[in-house]
């Protein structure tokens, strides 16, 4: 057995894990929305995040726009792109309710985006280095990086806004209704295409926000997206598929698991243990770890 390290280290681990995990969480929130209305596992979500990261990088090095300021561009662009992706690629398959077709279109989109990025920006690892990249701040008595904390704030704000939209606006309520029972929703006069398109628009704009967080924190390459999609799926399963706040919590939990495994066991095992937890949750608690009563079967 290993000795328990001092509490400062545990706190440091927890903080880093939570901050990193929030990014999985925000990706999972997008997946959760899209899965909710379309029952589609949108595997291209990670690729879209990396695309947004490259976009942020281009804005920074090309036009000198600060990465965090570029949120004002990336998020609205994401809304439009998400809307267009649904209308152009998924609308027909959604109408025919053939989910294999939708899944494969998502896979095709992932290939396409990954390789377009390779063609445009090359396959090497890229990053965004600003004047404050190396800046640290003190949080709960522990030092952590400024950009990571900003990424965490972006994730919280993004999820919060989505929650407000879903709970407070009638269109948001329509999206929730459609996720629960699409047939009943159409009887209320709700158009499936409209809620699907909204889910996609929000999902991709969240990918944009996550892209800002990734660009400022991690080095990335065109093929990093798939792992991100997988991690987001794990976060989604941990939080309960279709549960938006649960998705964020699931991401943070996954970040914690990864941080602890890396420290106590070995970096090489983080993925295996993360997916192991994923399988166990899928099998024994498919409604997620944070489920509330009256979940649909």
């Amino acid at each position: 057995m290993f000795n328990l390290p001092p509490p400062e280290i545990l706190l440091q681990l927890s903080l880093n894990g939570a901050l990193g995990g929030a990014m999985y969480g925000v990706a999972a929130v997008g997946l959760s929305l899209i899965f909710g209305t379309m029952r589609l596992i949108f595997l291209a979500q990670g690729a879209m995040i990396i695309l947004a990261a490259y976009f942020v990088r281009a804005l920074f090095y090309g036009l000198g726009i600060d990465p965090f300021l570029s949120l004002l561009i990336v998020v609205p662009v994401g809304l439009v792109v998400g809307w267009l992706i649904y209308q152009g690629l998924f609308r027909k398959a959604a109408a025919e309710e053939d989910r294999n077709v939708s899944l494969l279109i998502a896979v095709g989109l992932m290939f396409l985006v990954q390789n377009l990025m390779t063609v445009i920006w090359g396959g090497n690892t890229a990053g965004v280095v600003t004047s404050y990249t190396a800046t640290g701040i003190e949080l709960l008595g522990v030092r952590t990086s400024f950009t990571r904390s900003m990424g965490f704030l972006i994730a919280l704000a993004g999820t919060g806004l989505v929650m407000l939209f879903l709970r407070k606006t009638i269109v948001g309520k329509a999206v929730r209704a459609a996720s629960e029972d699409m047939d009943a929703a159409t009887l209320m006069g709700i158009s499936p295409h409209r809620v699907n398109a909204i889910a996609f628009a929000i999902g991709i704009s969240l990918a944009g926000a996550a892209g800002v967080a990734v660009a400022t924190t991690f080095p990335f390459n065109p093929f990093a997206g798939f792992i991100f999609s997988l991690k987001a799926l794990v976060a989604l399963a941990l939080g309960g598929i279709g549960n938006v706040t649960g998705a964020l919590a699931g991401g943070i939990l996954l970040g914690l698991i990864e941080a602890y495994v890396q420290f106590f066991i070995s970096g090489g095992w983080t993925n295996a243990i993360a997916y192991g937890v994923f399988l166990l949750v899928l099998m024994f608690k498919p409604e997620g770890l944070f489920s509330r009563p009256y979940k649909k079967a």
Partner: protein
Amino acid sequence: MANRLLEISDLEVAYGDVGALWGVSLHVDPGTIVALVGANGAGKTTLLRTVSGLLRPKAGDIRVSGRSLVGKAPQEIARMGIAHVPEGRGLFRQMTVLENLELGAFQPRARPRTKQLLEKAYTLFPRLKERAQQKAGSLSGGEQQMLAIARATMSEPSLLILDEPSLGLSPLVVQQMFSLIQTLHGQGVTILLVEQNIHQALKVADYAFVLQTGSLAMQGTGAELIADPEIQKAYMGVLE
């Protein structure tokens, strides 16, 4: 003919290759309660689901105030003023009672007046006001059925379609349900009612159609059918 609210002619519906309805024609006049009765599997629910667009007909026509709705999507049909309370109620169980009601007025026609419509619904269903912030799934069966009907009236439909509203409810609640249907009727709502509770249904109905294994077997006013010996023998006998 001109002022028929709902006019169904020679409707044929099939699930894959299996036929469910063969050439059914029926109509609903404005301001009436029309009952559609028949045994299990006669095709009643299939007919309702076809009217509201959840199923596509193989042949035949369905017109609402003269406009055909064949080929239209359910949300378009809902916006034409048809409110369908499906079998099993179709409530959004994880959403609150209030949210369910708000969604009932989702369509553009009703949405601006959500507040007034909500007040109206609460006067008719005071129980729902008390439960406004509860999850729909936490209500009792009778309350859930009330909510489903209240939600449907939130769109001020020209035709209210009810599929088995008394299913699974206690006799007392069934009585409440039928008196509620009559109240709605008194307010001028046109109702198409599918029921297995044939005696009760025929009692409140102005006119009724009997469906038998996918075809129309009989029609007449509610009073005529109640008195019909064949109906009595075939359906009333099996009533508990």
